[in-house]
């Protein structure tokens, strides 16, 4: 067994976990433990890869910059191959994925009591889809995983969600599909153009990178890719599915949506959109900047007006992803590293905030800001963690978001000082709405007499792990930056 076979294992281990679930389908406690075991194994696998990435990097693979590459025939009639590749960026995303799924399962341990078997099976299936998105290097294969991950999320929101769950689920599905179907046409067109030029039918990223495209064609194809990724991102004005989906999803769904699904959009842009169509991307940069800055300011203002805590965090998510967008648009090593790091940071931090609101919701059965107050005194442990993650979200130095945002702005300032100046407003605005949230929920006097129990051991463990990552990356981000250094240099065309 070659080490590259690990990639296949990593993708399909969760799905095969569904088989393990079958015998314990109707026994929730056992089923949860089985799923947790599978997810933990997956996490350990990714951590092992991280521990040995320097050793793996010393061995040359078929593609420059990649630690592991797998490549087999899949559908020769279409020229589709099963190509997987792991580089520093994918490794970071894969670690985030495995970690977020463990968190998602842990926070829904008690929250989901109905149809537990189905719930766990869908979570595992989704983990397979997302892992696939982060590892696929064949565009058709990527597209397949890209759509496969939608189905479990659709069910997750629609079956276990709250409020207008069906509306939100269908909206989520349709929004993402509009973009991706056009991207499918663009992928096929690119494949055909490449086949015309070289006579080789291939969907492989590294073959297609060599396609010569006229500026007009490039612009159209990039537009289709950009639309698909911008919807996932989500960029203003394509973001309207996000608050609905996040708010109505069960906690596990929100954690995965915020932590991972949004990242697939930015990841797709970094891995496929920009490298495949560099000139078109260059010419659309002003548009990208504009949308990102509008998104940051707009989302922050809207977040300020929210009464539902989950919705507030959902909007803050749009704002944070705006920074990631700026960093990608600058397409410059420092800013891009910042963006990639920020993707991971945002996944951890926002995931944690959603998890915490979910915990509160389980106890109080409401998420209205106006219902709470004085929680600092009432449930101090919850209060401590909530304050910590809120500070992270505000971008306080010493915590991880600061590092990401700093790198993004530092890198972009050379390219476009104006954008940085405008984006700086966006740094101040979260301070305001997060401060308001913290102040009203934690420190006001109690507004409604609610019987709240403080966090239990399971919840404390999960949150401590999340907090540990936050602090560790905030204080010592160098190892992660080293990990993504080489791929970022290769992407931006600098010397490694």
């Amino acid at each position, binding site marked *: 067994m070659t080490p590259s076979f690990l990639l296949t294992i990593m993708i399909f281990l969760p799905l095969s976990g569904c088989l393990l679930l079958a015998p314990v389908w109707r026994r929730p406690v056992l089923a949860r433990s089985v799923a947790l075991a599978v997810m933990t194994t997956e996490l350990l696998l990714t951590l092992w890869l991280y521990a040995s990435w320097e050793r793996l990097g010393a061995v040359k693979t078929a593609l420059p910059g990649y630690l592991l590459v797998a490549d087999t025939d899949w559908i020769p009639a279409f020229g589709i191959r099963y190509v997987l590749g792991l580089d520093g960026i994918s490794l970071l995303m894969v670690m985030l994925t495995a970690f977020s799924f463990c968190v998602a399962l842990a926070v829904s341990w008690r929250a989901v009591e109905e149809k537990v078997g189905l719930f766990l099976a869908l979570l595992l299936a989704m983990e397979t889809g997302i892992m696939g998105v982060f590892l696929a290097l064949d565009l058709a294969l990527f*597209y397949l995983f890209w759509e496969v991950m939608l189905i479990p999320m659709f069910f997750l929101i*629609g079956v276990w969600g709250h409020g207008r769950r069906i509306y939100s689920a269908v909206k989520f599905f349709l929004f993402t599909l509009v973009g991706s179907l056009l991207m*499918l046409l663009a992928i096929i067109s690119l494949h055909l153009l490449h086949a015309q030029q070289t006579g080789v039918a291939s969907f492989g990223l590294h073959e297609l990178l060599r396609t010569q495209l006229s500026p007009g064609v490039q612009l159209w194809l990039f537009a289709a890719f950009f639309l698909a990724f911008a919807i996932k991102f989500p960029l203003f004005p394509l973001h309207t599915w996000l608050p609905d989906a996040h708010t109505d999803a069960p906690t596990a769904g929100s954690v995965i949506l915020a932590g991972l699904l949004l990242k697939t959009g930015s990841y797709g842009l970094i891995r496929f959109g920009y490298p495949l169509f560099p000139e078109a991307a260059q010419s659309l940069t002003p548009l990208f900047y504009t949308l990102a800055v509008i998104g940051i300011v707009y989302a922050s203002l809207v977040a300020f007006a929210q009464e539902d805590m989950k919705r507030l965090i959902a909007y803050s998510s749009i704002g944070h992803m705006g920074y990631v967008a700026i960093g990608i648009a600058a397409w410059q090593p420092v800013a891009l590293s910042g963006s990639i790091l920020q993707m991971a940071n945002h996944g951890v931090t926002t995931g944690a905030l959603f998890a915490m609101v979910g915990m509160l919701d389980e106890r109080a059965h409401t998420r209205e800001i106006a219902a709470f107050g004085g929680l600092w005194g009432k449930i101090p442990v919850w209060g401590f963690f909530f304050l910590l993650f809120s500070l992270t979200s505000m971008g306080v130095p010493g915590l991880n978001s600061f590092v990401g945002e700093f790198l993004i702005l530092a890198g972009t300032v050379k390219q476009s000082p104006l954008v940085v100046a405008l984006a700086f407003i966006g740094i101040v605005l979260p301070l305001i709405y997060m401060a308001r949230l913290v102040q009203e929920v934690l420190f006001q006097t109690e507004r409604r007499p609610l019987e709240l129990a403080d966090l239990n051991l399971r919840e404390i463990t999960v949150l401590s792990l999340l907090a540990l990552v936050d602090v560790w990356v905030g204080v010592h981000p160098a190892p992660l930056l080293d990990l993504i250094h080489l791929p970022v240099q290769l992407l931006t065309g600098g010397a490694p």
Partner: protein
Amino acid sequence: MTRVDLMALMPLIILGGGSVLVLLAGGLRPGGYLYETALALTAGALVWSAALPQEAALQGVAVNAFSRTMSVFVCASGLVGLLLAMGYNRRRGIVGEEYPATLLFALAGMWAVCASADLLMLFLGLEAFTFAFYILVAIKRGASRGGEAGLKYLLNGTLSAAVLAMGIALIYAATGTFSLKALPAIPSALPDGPLYQAGVALLIIGLAFKLSLAPAHLWTPDVYQGAPAPVTALLSTASKGVSIVAVLLVMPLAGRWAGTHDLFWGLALMSVICGNLAALLQGSIKRMLAWSSVAQMGYVALGFTAVSSGGGQAALFYAVAYAAAGLASFGAVAALSGTGERDRLEDYRGLGYRHPLAGAALAVSMFSLAGIPPTAGFMGKFAVFSAALRGGDYGLAVVAILTAVVAVYYYLRVVVMLYMQPEGKAGGAEMALTSAEAVALSVTTLVTIWLGLFPGQLLDLLGRLLSIR
């Protein structure tokens, strides 16, 4: 006719003779094992076609690798159709030998289409199975919906038969031959004449009726809704698949006229728009599926616009994918219908949990029809759109894919009903699936997923068949 020819024709003899046999046996022993006999006969024809590589070229009939593979498809759909009908018809009081006998006759007609070597045989085959469906659609005596559907189908069908016959007559008048082999080889002077072109156009319009491509689709919703669900299952899959085969058989001679591309272009455009938009408004699941099948055939027609760039292979693959999903979805409707028809969408609330297998079959087939991976429908759309883009029809491809988003909405509605709505009041007596239904639904669902993950073998096979023909 030699012994070898007889061996090659054996599936037709099994099916045609079997039809008569079942009819007679029903007279002698009413209520005997008629469905089982029909099943055994169809399975025999299937195995024969699949296993024995006998070839024959007779007057009007050519049994070759292409026709044998297509008849495997026909027999397989026939088997599923029979399995679905067994329980459904018993619950509904449709007893007697007519149903299995007519169904075998329809399969014999379909076999004839696949093996036809001239236009006359093609016409005979097409009309033979359509004729059988006139009966099957109205098989339940006294059902007003069924009677209405049968009459509508008959009237429309007769018109289309006339159009088809006229087209064939014009082609014959222009060229002096019926032979599918000889026609494409005729020197170019003749086919450019208006007589030939009119003939081809009429031929395509006649076939468009069978495929229910807009604007020749108006019979579809009423007939699909009025017919018993297992009949609709076959009507929408096997009959469509065979009509696609017929189009591919006449393509070499039709393709000589540039207008053929434009004709299919227009049919595809109208079908995807009209079918998908109308399906949005339906409250009855059978009508919804009927309109959606108009759209699905539009995607097949998209493949026909690009036959020279792999569209034929794509269309055939799409036909197989659609057949699996169509059989599973109408099959699930049939299996979930008790004594009354479960037709309104609201009747499916929460059923996914009470009937896990039928619910999963319906849900998977909805995802397949919507073209979401990892299902066969996605690979079918992928193939069709690749062919269309290779053929250069960018505008049509973009319109078709945007209407596919519309389609996703109404397909998802069924999934939402199945899994995300609280169960409604118990509609009628609940019954478990019969084992025949369970087999039919699991096989079609597994085929849908298998072809979505590993379409390579089937694609290669179809490509090879089309290139040697």
